């Protein structure tokens, strides 16, 4: 035991600080961008609120895809669970917005537990297919349970009470937007802590090599499941935010299409950084909004071209491109 017992190292490693500084800058940038959005686009707040809800979904997806290496095309299950839970609670008289957000988060976490339990059985392509099957089943179940969910007509008639009893969710959507922005920043900071925690490192390790992690004496499946639950919590917040701000929950919120969109946004922005999730959502939704306003009939081609262009110009996603610009010397080795 001599190796371990020795306590006076010859050389001492300096403290780590660069990453923390970068993250502080990043969080401030997100908050500043959000506030800027509030003043620059006062008439587009509903759209921006939707963007925030989807950014939360993309962030949640990044936890699973980017930090655990689990590809999923069914992540909307977690988002939809949050949206429907908040929606159903609201229709049944629970109108306090923060409570609704909490209900959504818990429902999302529960859905994450179910989804994770099933998906962790398989690997690779089979896992992807499981995720698709699960989202289709949930979609179908939500359609069937129309007495509770409104089925394909959507769950309407949500009248959310004012935030803190003061701020109404009105036409201009200021309350919803600011609530969303605060949630986003808080969640982002929380996630930055989580991915930098021992647990976050462990998950990164599992992503690269589960056998190595087992040989280190750590269980793989329970940790991945834990990440699924956290991911569900975040997606559930996103879903509840969407439900509160639009006052309607539709089947689209628990669909394959939404799952695929979220994955596209995330990969577009770059996986495994958390920033990529936000950047990807802004680019995808912003681009879609602009081109579909310019030409509502044939904008899809332009979105396709954008995706192809990103793969060619920045295979690591847009934030990967940014990373290369930020430190041209440092990260050349990533492949």
């Amino acid at each position, binding site marked *: 035991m001599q190796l371990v017992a020795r306590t006076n190292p010859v050389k001492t490693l300096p403290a780590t600080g660069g990453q923390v500084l970068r993250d502080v800058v990043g969080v401030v940038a997100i908050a500043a961008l959000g506030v800027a959005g509030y003043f620059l686009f006062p008439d587009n707040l509903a759209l921006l609120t939707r963007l925030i809800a989807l950014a939360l979904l993309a962030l949640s997806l990044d936890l699973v895809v980017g930090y655990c290496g689990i590809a999923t095309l069914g992540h909307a299950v977690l988002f939809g669970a949050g949206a429907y839970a908040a929606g159903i609670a609201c229709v049944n008289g629970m109108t306090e917005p923060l409570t609704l957000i909490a209900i959504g988060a818990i429902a999302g976490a529960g859905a994450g537990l179910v989804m994770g339990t099933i998906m962790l059985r398989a690997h690779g392509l089979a896992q992807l297919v*499981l995720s698709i099957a699960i989202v*289709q089943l949930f979609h179908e179940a939500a359609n069937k349970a129309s007495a509770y969910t409104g089925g394909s007509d959507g769950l309407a008639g949500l009248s959310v009470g004012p935030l803190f009893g003061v701020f109404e969710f009105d036409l201009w959507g200021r309350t919803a937007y600011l609530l969303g922005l605060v949630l986003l920043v808080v969640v982002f900071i929380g996630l930055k802590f989580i991915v930098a925690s021992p647990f976050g490192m462990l998950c990164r390790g599992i992503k690269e090599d589960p056998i190595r992690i087992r040989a280190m004496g750590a269980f793989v499946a329970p940790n991945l499941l834990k990440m699924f639950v956290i991911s569900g919590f975040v997606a559930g917040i996103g879903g509840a935010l969407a439900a509160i701000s639009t006052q309607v929950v539709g089947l689209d919120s628990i669909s394959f299409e939404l799952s695929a969109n979220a994955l596209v946004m995330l*990969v*577009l922005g770059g996986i495994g950084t958390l920033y990529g999730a936000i950047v990807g959502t802004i680019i995808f939704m912003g681009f879609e909004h602009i081109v579909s306003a310019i030409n509502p009939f044939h*904008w899809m*081609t332009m979105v396709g*071209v954008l995706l192809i262009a990103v*793969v060619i110009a920045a295979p690591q996603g847009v934030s990967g491109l940014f990373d290369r610009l930020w430190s041209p010397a440092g990260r050349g080795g990533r492949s």
Partner: protein
Amino acid sequence: MRSVAGFGTAERDTSMQTVFSIAIDALAYGMALFIICIGLSLTMGLMRVVNLAHGAFAMIAGYIASYAVRDLGIGYVVAILLAIAGTVAISIPLERLLYRRIYGSPQLTQVLMTIGITFCVIGITNYFFGPTLKTIPLPAALSQPVDLGFRSVAAHRLFVMACGAVVALGLWFFIEKTAFGIRLRATVDNASISEALGIRTQAVYTISFAIAMGLAAFGGVVGAEFLPIEPYYALRYMVTFLVVVSVGGAGSIPGALIACLVLGAVDTTGRYLMPEFGNFFFYAAVIAIVWVFPRGLLGKAQ
């Protein structure tokens, strides 16, 4: 007494007929799926590309065939050949320009690229051909019902089954028994050694891609009676194709065949017995199969 017994027999006959009838429907649907999907199984299993744009190429073929038969008055068989040739001709430059960049890329990058291609194809099709359904009129021989004794079946369904069998056998022979098949498998196993052995791997990839697209085209045209051609085809059935191929085990011809037949049977039977829960059956079967065979029915270990 006799009448009761007679009634019982009649009852059993009807139920047997129903079982046969459902089996025939299931077989036809499964085979149609197989023809469309097998090309995707090749690209995913042998070339390791998750080509979500597979359906887009099947759709292009459908448009070509529809145009050829309806507007140019060309015969059905010639139209099929024309559609295959046309689709392959469109796909080769795309392979050179786009797909070649994503061989060996992470799956998610491939997903992004091929979804992008799908969006473009949909947008362009919508622009030039409009959003309406396009049919491919069948020749008289295929549009008549054929009497099988206990029921009549559209001749086209029998044709699809025959096509499926031919494709399965032909492809198996091609990959297992021909010189090109050997090269293809060698390239897949280890591209750099194959290259050292003098195999032109780029050419092998291009040809394999062209074959996969040709199969997509064939499936798109022949299967159009089941999956009608319209611009949204490429996205509408993307999930079905992906699921079927993965359940079978990417790259395995018998795997894809079994998956199509099993899922076709589950789908058809489920929709007969309890249509209101039709999708539940299909996806529950998918989950069950993947649960038991985490690599797909006949998928190879990593």
